[in-house]
Structures are given as structure tokens and as C-alpha cells.
């Protein structure tokens, strides 16, 4: 189930590293924030899937909307002289940690449940 997305991730990484694509230094902030937004969306999607509330539309729209919003915020920040991209980094960072924490809890609960079932079967 998770093999194909993982493969996709590796494919993307390999493609990017092998082609040696670079972006101008001016746009570094935008890309870094977009990467953060994308990671947040991915982990959000995994969490939603584990909680069985996953919605296709929410996932895809969230991916593109978050990236666009983050980049727009960074753009506005650059032109206003306020480091608004820090706000986006903070928000996405907190959400990333929360999502990963939730995923961890769910996985631990599942693992414990499986253990208990096994014990019941053996007894």
C-alpha cells in the first residue's frame, strides 16, 4: 500500500538530484517553505488515512493550496519587509510535529491491540 508512494518519492528525489536542477538564490525561501507545506500535507494525509477520515479532494486541494498560500505569504513578506515566511514555517512546523505525534500514537495503539489479540488467541 505504501510502497508505491515511497517509490514515487524516491523517483522524484533521484530525478531532482540527477538532473541537477537549481533555482536562483532569490527564490530559495519560496521553495523551502513550499517543501515544508508539501511535507505537512503528506503527513496530514497519512494521519487522515489512519484515522479513516481521508478525503481525496481535501488532500489534493490542501497540497496545492498550502504551497500556494505559503509562497504568497513569503512573497508578501519580502515586499512588506516583514519576515512573514517565518509565520508559515512556524505554523507548518507545529502541524508537522502534531501530525507525526498523532501518527505515532495511532500506530502504537494498533500495535498494542494486535498484541492483545495474539495473547487472547494463545490463551
Amino acid at each position, binding site marked *: 500500500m505504501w510502497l508505491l508512494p515511497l517509490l514515487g518519492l524516491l523517483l522524484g528525489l533521484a*530525478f531532482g538530484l540527477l538532473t541537477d536542477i537549481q533555482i536562483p538564490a532569490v527564490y530559495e525561501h519560496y521553495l523551502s517553505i*513550499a517543501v515544508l507545506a508539501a511535507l505537512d500535507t503528506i503527513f496530514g*494525509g497519512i494521519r487522515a488515512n489512519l484515522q479513516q477520515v481521508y478525503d481525496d479532494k481535501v488532500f489534493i486541494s490542501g497540497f496545492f493550496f498550502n504551497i500556494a498560500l505559503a509562497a504568497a505569504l513569503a512573497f508578501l513578506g519580502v515586499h512588506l519587509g516583514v519576515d512573514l515566511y517565518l509565520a508559515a514555517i512556524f505554523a507548518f512546523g507545529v502541524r508537522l510535529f502534531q501530525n507525526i505525534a498523532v501518527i505515532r500514537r495511532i500506530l502504537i495503539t494498533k500495535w498494542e491491540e494486535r498484541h492483545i489479540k495474539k495473547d487472547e488467541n494463545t490463551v
Partner: protein
Amino acid sequence: MNKKIVAKITIVSTIVGLMIAVQYNTMQQPTARDTRDIWEIRQELSEEKKRHSELLSEISALNKIVEEYEQNDAESQAQLLKNTVDSLAQQTGITSVSGPGVILNIVPASELIEFGYRIEPISPDLLIRLVNEIYHYNGLFVEIGGQRIVHTSAIRDINGATTVNGVPIDKSNLEIRVITNSYEDAEKLYSYLYASSFRDEFYLDNLNLVINEAQSNLTIDEYDGDLTNTYLVENSKGD
């Protein structure tokens, strides 16, 4: 989870992977733009070319020595060895050398002295710049006020007096002797120094730099101090 969802997640994760890789590339090797024009590149090329030919001629000279070593019998090999030692001694400054060269004199500007200007000691910075420029224009051996310049020579200010090799130099009439490879080089050095801004620089310090015509035979004495050697040790015989 149906196939459609997996496909969508795969596409998204591919994009994420690509973004991460691009970001990584950008952070690892920021592209430095090459802003040189053709002329600058040509100049750099000619510098390298010059260096190349210098190295080639050095190689051929060393090859010649090797050949001589291989061909000659033991007796003349000893003579060759002696020649090599002599030439090395000459290079380090422990023997006197003679050859074509240029003599420079630094004297106080007489018209300024008459009006009561003080004679300042020659600035060590200016002297260092002059020596560097002389070496840059193929000066082989340099002597300042009777002090041979060797690789450990220091030109500096000690208690208000400008010194070379730790010996205070004359500030009323300082003679700088430069020996070059050939008479042509000496003439070139003379022309270069004549055209350079050094005379103006010295005049700022109330001094006149007199550049004499190239001479076909000059002598520079050996370095009279001790050349200490911290890193090389002599091996005992038979090692």
C-alpha cells in the same frame, strides 16, 4: 484504499521528492556566475601560458642536468654536483653574485631640504613594495644599502629607524642594487621603474628615487648573517 487514491498520493510524493531534491541542490552548490568577458579570459589564458612555458623550460634545464649526471664519469659528476651546490648557494644568497643589473639611489630631495623640510626615514612599506615590484619584473638578486635580500630578510621599522636584515639603513643616500638574468632584462626593469609611479611615491616622502641606466656588470655581496634552518636535518653518512 483504492488504486486511484494510491496513484494520487504517489504523484504528490513524487512532486515532494523533486522539490526536496531541487532545494538540496540549490543549498549545496550555489551557482557562481562567470562574469568574465572574452578579454579577461584571454588575459588569464596568457598568464597560464606564460607559466606553462616557464615550467617547460625549467623541466628541460633539469633534464639537461640529469643527462649530464648520467653521461659523465665519477670525477666530472663531482664537478657537476659542485656546480649545483654553487648555484643553490647563489640562489640562497650565501655567495656573492655578479651580472647585468640596475642601481637605484634614494636621496633626499635637495630643493625641499633647502626650504627646511625634515628628512623622514624611508618608509618600510614603500621599500617592500619596491622590492616586490623588482622581483615581479625579473630582478633576481637585490641588495639594499649593502644588505643582501634573502628569503628570511625583513624590512621593518625598529624604534623609528627603517632596517633591512635588522641593520638600520642610510637615509641620506641609499643604494639599491638589482641583478637580472640578462642585460635586456636589466633594461626592461629600468624602463619599467622609470615609467612607474615609484618616483612620485618617494617624492611624497621628500625623497628622490634616482634610477640609473642598466649596467652590464654589477656585483652583489653575500648575505653576512647566519641562515638558520629549522626544518631540515643533515643525515649521518651511510644512512
